[in-house]
């Protein structure tokens, strides 16, 4: 889950990581008021959206006086950045940057730990730096049972600074950021850039935090900051029903048990010349109610011309799925043809239940997919 820069900066402040003075605003008038409260003539106006590349899109501007501030605030509020509408801006003190650095913590699959990443190439797209000049990025794997001791924070800070006073200041920030990362169950805590000002202060002038969805249950305050997009709302609704859903836009709706099999089903639809409408994993145990909800979700997509159900019964029992489908069709009236593949636990019972229905029943994944693709072609609008 993502949060906005201003929310991440509030967390930074709480943990004692220095940030510039800034105020979040929802209107030009708010911005003018904020400007009068900030102890600086020059301010930066930044769009608050859940995407990168704000600067390039014109969502970050420097204002030297109130007239410029009004102009920038008016231009940025309401702006569309990569499909996100800007409804908030952050008005912050402009600092005199001497140098920019990069500092982050992220989960590393390979070392199975959090890693600290630092670079003197701050303010840049770090993925590009990693690709083109990987030697400019320094990495430290963090032992979760030890955390970031003083010596390690110092060693890391020396990768960025030569002056020992600056190293001491940066080391403290490095330790505090780790504390924040761990205590909030983040999957990313990033300062890009961390700046050295001309006044020799070290402060975070941008802040990015992403959180582990699996850990939100123990962070209700963070969970409350979630602002899902329309598409994500549908995904969250699906999640509340116990399955995962991703919209793809094709014409063959899929319902599958298990994420890997669901991905493979999408791929095979494409391989056979069709287009998957979605990814839908109904999960391990599938009660009839779950199947009904899944069916409703699929049919709410008006592009769907065929539904393909691929069930490999392990924990999921094929007869449960069949019962769910029969109930679903009692409740939902639809002309959309349904192809179903049932293999595994109680497959015979499941197939027997569907014998006298209009459903197309197939024994293998390939056969079912082929039928679905053919039906989709026949039902071209």
């Amino acid at each position: 889950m993502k949060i906005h820069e201003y929310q991440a900066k509030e967390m930074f402040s709480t943990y004692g990581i220095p940030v510039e003075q800034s105020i979040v605003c929802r209107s030009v008038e708010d911005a003018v008021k904020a400007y009068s409260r900030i102890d600086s003539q020059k301010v930066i106006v930044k769009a608050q959206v859940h995407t990168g590349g704000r600067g390039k899109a014109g969502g970050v501007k420097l204002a030297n006086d109130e007239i410029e501030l009004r102009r920038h605030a008016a231009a940025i509020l309401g702006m569309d950045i990569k499909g996100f509408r800007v409804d908030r801006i952050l008005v912050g003190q402009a600092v005199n940057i001497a140098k920019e650095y990069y500092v982050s913590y992220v989960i590393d699959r390979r070392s199975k730990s959090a890693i600290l990443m630092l670079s003197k190439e701050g303010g840049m797209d770090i993925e590009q730096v990693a690709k083109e000049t990987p030697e400019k990025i320094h990495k430290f794997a963090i032992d979760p049972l030890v955390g970031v001791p003083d010596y390690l924070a110092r060693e890391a800070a020396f990768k960025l600074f030569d002056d020992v006073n600056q190293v001491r200041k940066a080391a403290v920030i490095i330790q505090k950021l780790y504390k924040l990362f761990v205590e909030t169950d983040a999957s990313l805590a990033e300062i890009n850039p961390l700046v050295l000002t001309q006044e020799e202060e070290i402060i975070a002038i941008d802040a990015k935090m992403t959180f582990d969805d699996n850990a939100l249950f123990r962070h209700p305050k963070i969970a409350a900051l979630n602002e899902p997009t329309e598409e994500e709302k549908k995904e969250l609704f699906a999640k509340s029903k116990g399955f995962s859903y991703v919209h793809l836009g094709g014409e063959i709706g899929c319902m599958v048990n298990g994420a890997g099999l669901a991905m493979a089903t999408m791929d095979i639809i494409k391989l056979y010349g069709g287009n998957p409408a979605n990814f839908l994993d109904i999960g391990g145990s599938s009660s009839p109610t779950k199947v009904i909800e899944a069916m409703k979700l699929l049919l709410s997509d008006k592009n769907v011309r065929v539904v393909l159900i691929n069930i490999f019964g392990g924990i999921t029992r094929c007869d449960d799925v069949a019962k769910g489908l029969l109930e679903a069709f009692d409740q939902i009236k639809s002309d959309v043809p349904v192809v179903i593949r049932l293999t595994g636990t109680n497959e015979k019972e499941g197939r027997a239940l569907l014998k006298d229905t209009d459903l197309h029943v197939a024994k293998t994944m390939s056969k079912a997919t082929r039928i679905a693709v053919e039906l989709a072609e026949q039902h071209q609008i």
Partner: protein
Amino acid sequence: MSILIDKSTKLIVQGITGRDGGFHTSKMKEYGTNVVGGTSPGKAGEFVDDVPVFNTVRDAVNKTGADTSVIFVPAPFAKDAMMEAADSGIKLIVCITEGVPTLDVVEAHSFIKSKGASLIGPNCPGLMSPGKSLVGIMPSMVFMEGRTGVISRSGTLTYEVVYNLTENGIGQSTAIGVGGDPVVGLYYIELLKMFENDPETDSIVLIGEIGGDAEEQAAEYIKNHITKPVVAFIAGQQAPPGKQMGHAGAIISSGSGTAAEKIAAFEAVGVPVAKEPKEIPQLLLSRK
């Protein structure tokens, strides 16, 4: 032989009195797994399908000599369960639980390693050595004893692949679902090494999916260290970037972790990649 589990495996079930724990205890016993005990704090003295329940893993290990544990406790308690198993002398810990916070796994994994034990999962279907032992939730009827090792990040997709193998007369030595989360225990490289050293495994099927770069690392490892034929399958070619496809670990981030990159990595080292699970048996037979 087989890897990790066989007829001598002595298993305990953590969370045996729960719905899933109880159900799968019976299934594993039915298959012939030696389930020697289970744990559930406060329920010592009870039995689940004739299996004795203990309050702590240490009690269970002391009384039964268990060496392997399978975990069915809810996600908020999974870290503690994994650590308890390692601290009590369990050598192989298999965590089925889905939705465990990543940092919990990081911490538990580090602790397990310090105790000299191994972890499989979390968010995995477990593992199975057909004809010998089943630890986890795999549907035993699709498996067949044989000489092909299977390693996968997924559950039902593993069954699909195994089903295709069995239908074509190709049995399995051991099949392992390593788990779909970003951070899990034993992974491709450790398991490839075990299969390479197992005299009763002749070939290996590797089932990968989008997210991370473990498949690319596996391809590199195969090139340098594996002499047995390997066939791969990668799920998620149609997955859009930035979207998590069910598994917490299945996400293409900043254009990396795509199926195309993984397929190219395998093909570059001479590992054929099946276009659909149905193709895997032919590819295996052609490589033997």
